[in-house]
């Protein structure tokens, strides 16, 4: 399990980041004593550091240089400063990447994953494959497969994204806007119909697994996963 150290003086952001990142199976620490950051660094010896620039006493650039004296672990800056000069400074002082506030958690996660991959290799110390499970229904987002009882179905990228959001948000509603945003990829832009079409496909996939009415439409809000099955494989 990779260890991540968060150095951020706004405790709310630190808490939110901690809870979000640990959902993805990382061990997260956050620094509370900003006078002795290096002590905490030694104590946890993290695999990756998220670092704010504006900190009490010394700034993030300084701490980055201190970290660089003893470690080559990836350092990602998170800051409200958006000037080109600030980014240059961050990278010149030994940072590996820069994320500006207000940030999107998905971007933070993507950058963390990519830097860990680059630094420690895809398979070395592999964190186990991510699995989302709900009452015996298992989704493997990385291989895009879903398993229920003895049956396994393969999914398209879009279907996997939708099911992942639904399971992630359960028992809450997955917002229409969030789902559309997830489906939007670089090359082809979505439109209103994309979501409807893909939800229909997802429902069909659930039927293949023998599950009826798994996706419930919530008018004006989005879709919700409706757990109509049990662990034992009964529908």
């Amino acid at each position, binding site marked *: 399990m990779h260890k991540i150290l968060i150095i951020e003086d706004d405790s709310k952001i630190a808490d939110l980041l901690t809870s979000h990142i640990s959902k993805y199976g990382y061990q997260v620490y956050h620094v509370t004593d900003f006078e002795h950051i290096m002590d905490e660094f030694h104590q946890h010896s993290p695999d990756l550091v998220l670092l704010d620039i504006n900190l009490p006493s010394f700034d993030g650039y300084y701490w980055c240089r201190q970290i660089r004296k003893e470690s080559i672990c990836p350092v990602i800056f998170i800051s409200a400063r*958006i000037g080109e000069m600030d980014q240059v400074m961050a990278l010149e002082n030994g940072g590996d990447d820069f994320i500006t506030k*207000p940030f999107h958690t998905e971007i933070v996660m993507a950058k963390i994953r990519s830097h860990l991959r680059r630094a420690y290799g895809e398979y070395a110390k592999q964190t186990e494959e991510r699995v989302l499970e709900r009452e015996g229904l298992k989704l493997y987002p990385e291989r895009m497969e879903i398993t229920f009882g003895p049956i396994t179905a393969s999914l398209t990228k879009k279907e996997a994204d939708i099911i992942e959001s639904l399971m992630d948000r359960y028992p*809450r509603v997955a917002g*229409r*806007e969030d789902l559309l945003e997830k489906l939007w990829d670089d090359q082809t*832009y979505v439109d209103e119909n994309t979501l409807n079409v893909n939800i229909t496909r997802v429902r069909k996939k659930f039927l293949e697994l023998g599950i009826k009415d798994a996706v419930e439409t919530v008018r004006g*809000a989005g879709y919700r996963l409706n757990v109509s099955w049990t662990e034992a494989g009964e529908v």
Partner: protein
Amino acid sequence: MKLFFKEHILLIFVQLLQFIIILSILWLDGHQQFSTALYAFFIGCFFLSCYLFYHYYSRKKFYNRLSMTLTSLDESFKKTDETPISEALDQLLRDQYKLYQNQLKTLEKQQNEHLKFMDQWVHQMKTPLSVIELTAQNLDEPDSSNIREETERMKNGLNTVLYMARLRSFEQDFHIKPVTLSSLVHEVNQDNKRFYIRNHVFPKLENRKDGITVESDEKWLFFIVTQLIHNAVKYSNGKNSIVITIYESGEEAVLEVTDFGVGIPEVDKKRIFDPFYTGENGRKFRESTGMGLYLTKEAADRLGHRIELDTKVEEGTSFRIIFSSSQNLTNM
């Protein structure tokens, strides 16, 4: 010269009057010799004109200066000449200059402080905004989306403030390099996908020629395109697509953003680029500050791009950013 005469006309008049009176007293007293009188009169005139000539030539610069207008503040520092009255004038101008300078300096300092404060404040607001956004992600729908819609709006507002402040120091804040238009548009769309989704308006990109590249500043161009897209989406009014077209027209490269919405009334057309002007549409739709297009136009002007628009009420508007032939690097 004119000023000098105006100044001395009374003196000349009084002198002449004096000659005549003295001569007539002598005349009436019995010294009735015409030639002597004439001689005395000429001598009087001679001395008078000597005085006037001397006076004029020694103060020529002074009079010239008084009749000329000041064109710059620094000119008030110029030395006139050595006569007492000129020195007094110089002193007066110098004092005035100093007072004005002091006042200007204080105002300038105040303004800079204010700008610095604004800049800092905008950056400080970003952290609470992130906290709100992250917290909202864990809420139930539709609250979650609603809150994030509002934070997005605040984010845009804060960005406008930042760009407004940057416009003042534009000369130090741009970096010209080749920019590929299609990838820039992709980035802008990616950045605004939530905005599109929320407004139920979706973009179509029409790339009539691959790899159109122009010379521009990426950050400012990004800002300009974002503003145009925001307007297009905001005033789409129920129509659910906008079209972004990239093409070449003659030697020039063009980026066009077209919507099929409300259009701009003829009366507003001339003034939409004015600061704080919101027009009829701005009053009908909410969250119009009147700053978006002003900043767009200012930034485009400074980068040397032209902005054109076609619009028809109820049919839509298209804005074009035109890159001149020397800025179009596509065929190089």
